């Protein structure tokens, strides 16, 4: 069976944006992009592409399509996937598809996966690093009726089976499911490979297929905000009161003594 993998990748505001530069527009219920900080590929999604490449490297065959839902700029994350070594790119670019909850997003991605055709493995990040839901991958599996393994640190494919190790906090569990299947990937898999210049240049020349809601056969009420099952009521920055008491001391040793005594007085040690 020829392996046909789709990796879902999302463009997000850089999660390393310092908290001081992070702003929201409460009226529009949107995050205001921090000036000078370019959006990036959601970290776990890059790791999903890495997982796909490792499978392809091991098997010596397979096709990897990177699929993204987002505006024109999301082309960059598709190009990133292509530069890492993926074969094809598809962008779902249509205002009607945007601002959906994970269910609406999964509906659109699923329609695209069906349109790509003959897909037997879908890889996603464990969660997007902007809205931190961790729902989309599993929702794709449920909509397709495929088995899924979530939050994994290794993924291998043999014959008609995918085997992955789940990260359980205090254990790792190796799980097998038959293909076709969906697997979501965590950072424990390891660093995604960094594209090299010739690959970046080759990726820049590659065509990205663009589809709209109509191309996917989705009606407006199935997609984006209208197709969502959740209503975003409010988006706000929580207030934290800073009241740190800084420990004095002329030397590190003196500070150490002072802190220990302070904690003792407060009955914390």
């Amino acid at each position, binding site marked *: 069976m020829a392996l046909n993998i789709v990796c879902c990748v999302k463009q997000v505001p850089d999660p390393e944006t310092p908290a001081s530069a992070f702003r929201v527009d409460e009226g529009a219920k949107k995050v205001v992009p921090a000036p000078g900080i370019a959006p990036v590929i959601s970290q776990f999604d890059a790791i999903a592409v890495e997982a796909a490449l490792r499978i392809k490297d091991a098997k010596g065959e397979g096709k990897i399509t990177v699929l993204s839902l987002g505006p024109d700029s999301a082309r960059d994350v598709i190009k990133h996937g292509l530069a890492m070594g993926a074969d094809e790119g598809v962008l779902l670019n249509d205002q009607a598809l945007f601002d959906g909850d994970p269910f609406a997003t999964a509906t659109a991605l699923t329609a695209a996966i069906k349109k790509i055709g003959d897909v037997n493995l879908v890889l996603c990040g464990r969660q997007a690093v902007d809205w931190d839901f961790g729902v989309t991958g599993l929702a794709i599996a449920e909509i397709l009726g495929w088995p899924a393994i979530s939050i994994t640190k290794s993924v291998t494919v043999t014959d008609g089976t995918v085997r992955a190790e789940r990260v359980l906090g*205090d254990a790792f569990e190796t799980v097998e499911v038959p293909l076709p299947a969906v697997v979501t990937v965590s950072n424990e898999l390891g660093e995604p490979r960094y594209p090299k210049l010739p690959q970046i240049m080759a990726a820049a020349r590659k065509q990205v297929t663009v589809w709209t809601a109509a191309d996917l056969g989705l009606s407006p009420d199935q997609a984006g905000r209208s197709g969502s099952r959740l209503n975003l009521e409010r988006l706000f920055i929580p207030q934290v009161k800073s009241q740190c008491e800084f420990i004095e001391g002329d030397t590190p040793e003196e500070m150490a003594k002072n802190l220990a005594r302070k904690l003792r007085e407060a009955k914390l040690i």
Partner: protein
Amino acid sequence: MSGILVLAEHKNGELIGLSTEILGAARRLADQLGEKVVALSLGSGAGEAARKAITYGADSALTVENPALDEYSGDAWVAALLAAHKEVEPSIVLMGQTMVGRDLAPRYAVRAGTGVAMDCIDLSIEGGKLVMTRPVFGGNAHASYTSKTSPAVATVRAKSQEPLEPDPSRSGEVKAISVDVSSRSKVVGREEVKAEGIRLEDAKVVVSGGRGLGGPEGFEQLHQLAEVLGGAVGASRAVVDLGWVPVSLQVGLTGKVVTPDLYIAVGISGASQHVAGITGVKNVVAINKDKDADIFKISRYGAVVDWKPFMAAFLEECKRLKA
């Protein structure tokens, strides 16, 4: 029927702490809405867990006491939850943001034809609707959601809700239901991550290290300090990714939520994703050489200092005070 359905996770009949917290939250919501709380527990010991769930605030409980459900399996557990859904026709479904909840809630929500808000830290009723508030963008912002579809489904972050005092005199019906536990997935191996000493989640004192320690050797001293203080060692993801410590020590959004009385952060910058794991901690102590580090913003005490000369002396002083 309608009501609030709560997945009561347990180990051999003993409810996990987070489940008691969610039962407390469910009770408060149910009282406002004039609804009932129904607990669901699965696997061996489910009956025992169900009776405990009632003492913690449930009105009644459903059980599937099938050993095939002792270990989590997505297919089998979602089937059990859907069977309970049919019994209760809930307006709200709550479960923990545990390794189970993270996998189960999305599967269940899609099959039940509804949405899900993951990792909620606040649940309230406004205009008869459940408002589910969750940290987003790594904790930099909070987002509040309502559900357009029924039931409203949420997973709940550990230590964000207060449990009730268990009341052994509370009683309620416990009903066994049966489900098809077949599964398309097969567990073919399990590797425990060996944890020494006190569990991070149960520790009264947590000493955590970050990239500022400069290398895995730094954790030696943190272990010594934890031992002196009777606590456990935690870590930031940066050092887990660097392979200095195992992933079981990771505190934060994608790691563990901890609630010690005292959290000592050594060489940790205080990225929102790390802080997500300690939002419930009142006494954070930060040791960091950068006075502008974000960790100080959520700390009660701070020492702006190079950790190395500091820690040796701190360890000695703690030993002396504890002696």
